[in-house]
């Protein structure tokens, strides 16, 4: 690690990459990956404010928000008519967008030219909220259309049915955009309150990658008008006990039955690095059982209990974590029994598998470095979380069979299990 004029430079000699890290005088963490490997530059500013932030403490008061407010705010900031963001980015050939997740809201662009102007505009649009009764009302109809579009997705509906089974109170159970009913109550004052609370330098991070000058990026970040300080204490129920409902079923206009099955984490990990290690062991557990190289999956497939639609994932953040295995099936009961059978049986992990999965994940990591957006997006999230750069391979090296087995025992508990079944109407 070296110091370069206000930056700490962290190098990864094996991959020939480097990250320049700094914090602006206003408190905004900045990471830059300057590289001439790309013609295009990518930038992301991300905030620790997402759909699960439905309550926070403000002095002696507790503020409660309707579901969908973070997503609504993202829409409004992005479509600030005074900045005319879309037009200005488009006139420079830049591609700009935003996304709201469970715990973060992120704004980003890619551009082959005029990075300075684009970054100034990106930071400008997240630094102030221009909210009026008229423009908030106009956006309501557009967001309602977006919500309806998502609700037409079978997987989206079953996914949130599944989360509703896992969680009794935790706001991760609610759709990110809220519902048509919940957004009906969102006012300009509500949006302004949430903007003032969460859109702050101490609750954000900026990362830029591509053919850029780190010092220029830091200069622009330092000049941005984002309010200083940290965010208020976000209030959310831990909801680490038993699941709300072990099983629900829903009739849908679908050609085949669908099963969503998984476990919620019953403990949270505050340390981001430890959380990433937990993420890795869980993903390897699922890989061992359900990847295309798994004889466990192949056996289920040969017996007609699952087919190629079988998928698995693990999602986690500082305030929730859950695994999800999903599959289309003719016989949900047989499929559920078979999946639970392999999840409950201690997983077999030998040295050959461990070496192979490490190779596979090394290859995946190398591939991730080949996309400029991945570099910026990944560094923005790590900067927000306070995770040191280039730790992925160390994490991978530290992976052991025992840690995966221990993770299975901890995670795959009956009281943390929920099942959702979609039936053809």
């Amino acid at each position, binding site marked *: 690690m070296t110091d370069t004029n206000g930056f700490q430079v962290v190098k990864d000699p094996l991959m020939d990459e480097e990250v320049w890290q700094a914090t602006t005088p206003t408190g905004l963490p900045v990471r830059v990956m300057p590289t001439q490997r790309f*013609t295009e530059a990518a930038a992301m500013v991300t905030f620790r404010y997402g759909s699960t932030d439905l309550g926070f403490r403000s002095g002696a008061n507790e503020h409660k928000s309707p579901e969908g407010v973070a997503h609504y705010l993202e829409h409004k900031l992005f479509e600030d008519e005074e900045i005319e963001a879309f037009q200005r980015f488009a006139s420079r050939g830049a591609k700009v967008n935003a996304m709201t997740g469970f715990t973060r809201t992120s704004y980003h662009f890619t551009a082959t030219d005029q990075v300075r102007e684009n970054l100034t505009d990106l930071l400008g649009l997240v630094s102030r909220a221009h909210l009026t009764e008229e423009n908030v009302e106009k956006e309501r109809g557009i967001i309602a259309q977006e919500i309806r579009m998502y609700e037409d997705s079978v997987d989206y509906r079953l996914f949130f049915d599944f989360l509703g089974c896992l969680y009794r109170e935790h706001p991760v159970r609610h759709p990110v955009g809220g519902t048509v009913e919940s957004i009906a109550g969102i006012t300009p004052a509500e949006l302004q309150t949430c903007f003032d609370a969460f859109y702050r330098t101490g609750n954000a991070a900026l990362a830029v990658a591509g053919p850029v000058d780190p010092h220029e990026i830091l200069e622009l970040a330092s000049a941005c008008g984002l309010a200083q300080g940290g965010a208020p204490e976000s209030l959310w129920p831990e909801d680490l006990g038993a699941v709300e409902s072990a099983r629900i079923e829903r009739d849908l206009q*679908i050609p085949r039955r669908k099963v969503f099955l998984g476990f919620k984490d019953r403990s949270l990990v505050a340390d981001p690095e430890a959380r990433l290690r937990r993420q890795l062991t869980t993903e390897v557990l699922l890989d061992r059982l359900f990847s295309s*190289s798994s004889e466990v999956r192949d056996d289920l497939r040969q017996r007609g209990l699952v087919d190629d639609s079988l998928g698995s994932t693990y999602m986690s953040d500082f305030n929730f974590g859950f695994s999800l295995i999903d599959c289309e099936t003719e016989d949900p009961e047989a499929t559920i029994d078979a999946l639970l059978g392999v999840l409950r049986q201690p997983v077999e992990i030998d040295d050959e598998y461990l070496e192979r999965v490490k190779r596979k994940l090394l290859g995946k990591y190398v591939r991730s470095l080949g996309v400029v957006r991945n570099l910026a997006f990944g560094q923005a999230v790590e900067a927000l979380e306070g995770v040191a750069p280039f730790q992925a391979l160390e994490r991978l090296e530290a992976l052991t069979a025992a840690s995966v087995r221990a993770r299975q025992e901890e995670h795959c508990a009956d009281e943390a299990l929920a099942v959702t079944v979609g039936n053809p109407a």
Partner: protein
Amino acid sequence: MLPCMGDAFAGFQRSEIAGIPVLWKRDTRFKTFRVALSAYRPLDERAAARSMLPSLLVQGTQSDPTRPALSRRMESLYGAAVIPSTGKIGEGHLLRFTVDSISPAHVPGDPDLLGDGLHLLADILARPVLQDGAFPEETFRREQTQAVHDVRAMFNDKMAWAGQQAITHGCAGEPFAIPEHGGEAAIAELDAAAPEAARRDFLTHGAMWAVAYGALPEEGLLDKIGGFLAELPDRTPEPVPAPVQPARRERRATVERVDVQQSKMVLLFRPSWVEDSKVWAARVLFANMLGGGPHARLFRVVREEMSLCYYAQAFIERYKGMMQVHVGLDEAMAEKVEAEVLRQIDELTAGRFDANELDVAKAGILSTLAAVDDSIAERMEFTSRQWVLGQDRGPAEQAALFASVQPEDVVAAAQDMWLDHAYLLAPEANGS
């Protein structure tokens, strides 16, 4: 369809190996490389059999006879992937097999990952597990069932499903109406011999080319690719006919009702067929000004000013010769939206747009072209599509073509665009 026979094409070097054009470019900016073998056949009744090949061929090879064994081999090569795919390019059916690997520079021992990857591809493509000249019956039946399920599951993505249904209805009687997967009924009627016949047809009669790009080795590249291509059978490639262009006719319409909350409208417009690539560049800019993103008229006027829809996009299907407009809306707004789309098209074709609209459309396309070289996958796709069109222009030359388009070119290129078909996917009852 017959590019010039020089030693370069679209910014790649061009070699001819075993009668197959090989377009390649070594680029040390990357940490990975890809090699893709593509073949192009007419989109016809054999589409269903062809579309099953990607799934059947990864079920195992003579040396790795099961799917887990084959997957384990890929994982051992640092997650190297052989990515089989099929797709439509206009009225052509494309089959592609891509090897994706990281560079050996980033792993211990400097393994020959290119040679290993091509050997793996040869095993998959040329040495599948067969019984009596067909894929094993049990394997075939399982994958056939899977393919039918996959086709049915497309209904779950209403936007994509509406797009497919619009083509099915709007292009009925044309090869373009055949879905890339061939159709559920066609898949269900296949026997185990059909996919193997399709594999042989693909290898012997497909208009074939190979593209390689990325962190390729300095030495032995063409020898290794040549070794791989030598394992393919002797070939007699056949050309793919030009796409069918119907005569101008009255607007037709289809409404389908399903369990959906947000209606989807797809408008199919037909322009005249020309070979002049500058005309197509002008049409692409026209579609971009109309519905190429948040800067375009459909977004600014139809969504933002009139609040008639959630999304509205327009794009040119260059290989078929068609402009499509896709809109997500309440069914009650359908007539108004169609009328406004037509009004905006009339405005643009009358030349009632300012220079800034064209400049913004150009800026987006030029920026995209400037960044094509940043992505191995996108640069290879660009090169392949140029090959299919016979357009020997790299991204910079393609950008120069777009930059040269003037407002009068856009107006002229869009003059004979006519609305052929309006498709609406709408809720089952009570309108919206």
